[in-house]
C-alpha cells in the first residue's frame, strides 16, 4: 500500500524557510504544482517583510535576473548586494504585496507567472496607485525546490 504525504509540497517548501503559508495567496491556482511554484512570490514577499537581502536573494538561481528600476541585475550575488544595500537604505521599512493573475507551464520545470502588486512604503497601509506594478516571473525547478530565474515589473497606473 502506498501513502501520500498529507503535507503539500508548497507547505513543505515554506516550512523549510520558516514561513507561514498564506492559503489565500493562491487564489484560483490551487493545484499542487501551481502552489509549489507560488511559494516563490510568497518567499520574495517574506524577504521584503524581513528587509533581508540574503533571504531575498537566495530564492534566485545563481544566474538569476532582476530588473529593479534602471538596474538589470544578472546574478544572485548582484541581487544580494543590491537588495542588502536597498533594505539598509531606500527600501528600509518597505514591504510588498502581490497576488497571482496567471500561471502557465512552458516546460515541466519552467513556469511563467504574472502577478499584480507593488511596494508599500513605511507609513502606508496599501499600495499607492503610482507604485502599482505588473510583474512577470520565470520560475524554474532545481532539485526539490522552485527557484526564481527572472523577475521584471512594469508600472501600471491604477
Amino acid at each position, binding site marked *: 500500500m502506498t501513502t501520500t504525504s498529507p503535507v503539500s509540497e508548497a507547505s513543505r517548501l515554506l516550512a523549510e524557510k520558516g514561513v507561514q503559508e498564506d492559503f489565500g495567496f493562491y487564489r484560483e491556482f490551487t493545484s499542487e504544482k501551481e502552489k509549489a511554484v507560488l511559494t516563490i512570490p510568497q518567499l520574495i514577499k517574506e524577504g521584503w517583510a524581513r528587509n533581508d537581502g540574503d533571504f531575498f536573494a537566495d530564492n534566485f538561481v545563481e*544566474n538569476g*535576473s532582476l*530588473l529593479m*528600476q*534602471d538596474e*538589470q541585475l*544578472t546574478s544572485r550575488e548582484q541581487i544580494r548586494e543590491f537588495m542588502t544595500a536597498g533594505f539598509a537604505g531606500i527600501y528600509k521599512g518597505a514591504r510588498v504585496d502581490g497576488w497571482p493573475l*496567471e500561471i*502557465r507551464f*512552458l*516546460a515541466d*520545470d*519552467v513556469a*511563467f507567472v*504574472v502577478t499584480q502588486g507593488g511596494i508599500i512604503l513605511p507609513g502606508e497601509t496599501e499600495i499607492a496607485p503610482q507604485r502599482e506594478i*505588473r510583474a*512577470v516571473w*520565470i520560475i*524554474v525547478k532545481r532539485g526539490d525546490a522552485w527557484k526564481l*530565474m*527572472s523577475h*521584471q*515589473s*512594469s*508600472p*501600471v*497606473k*491604477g
Partner: protein
Amino acid sequence: MSNASKLVAGAKQWASYYGDFPNGEEGAVLTVPLRVRGEWERNDADAIADVFTENGSMLVGDTQLKGREEIRSYLKEAFAGGWKGSKWIEEPTEIKKLTDDVGIAITTGGLLPAGQDELGPGDKVRAVYIVHRQDGEWRLVSHQTSPIKN
C-alpha cells in the same frame, strides 16, 4: 547603390542587431525580438501578432493584451494611429536559454516615433521577451517593457 549592394548593406546592418549574441542557441532565442523589430518597421500588425503563441501576452502601458487576436487588433489600431511610421529599436542586454525550448531575451531600447532618429531620454525601456519553441518554431509567450528613468 545597386540593388545587390543595398541587400548586402541591409543584411550587414541586421546582422549587427545580434550584438554580443550572433551565434548558436542564444542567437535562436534572439530571432524572436528581431522578427518583431523587422515586422514593426513595416508596421505589420498581423505579422507581429503571428510571432506570438496563440495565448501570448503583451503589456502596453497599463493594457494587458491577452492572446494573439487581442494583440493583433490593438496593433492594427496603433499602427493606423499614434504608432504610424514608428520603429521598434533595441539592443540585446541578456539572453538565457532555460530548456531546449524556452528562453528569455532582455533588451534595452524603445519605440521610435515617425520622423525621429533616436530615442528621447524618457522613451527608453527594458523589454523582456519570454520565448517558447512550438512545433519547431520560436514564438513569443510574453512581451513586457519597463521604463528606464535614468
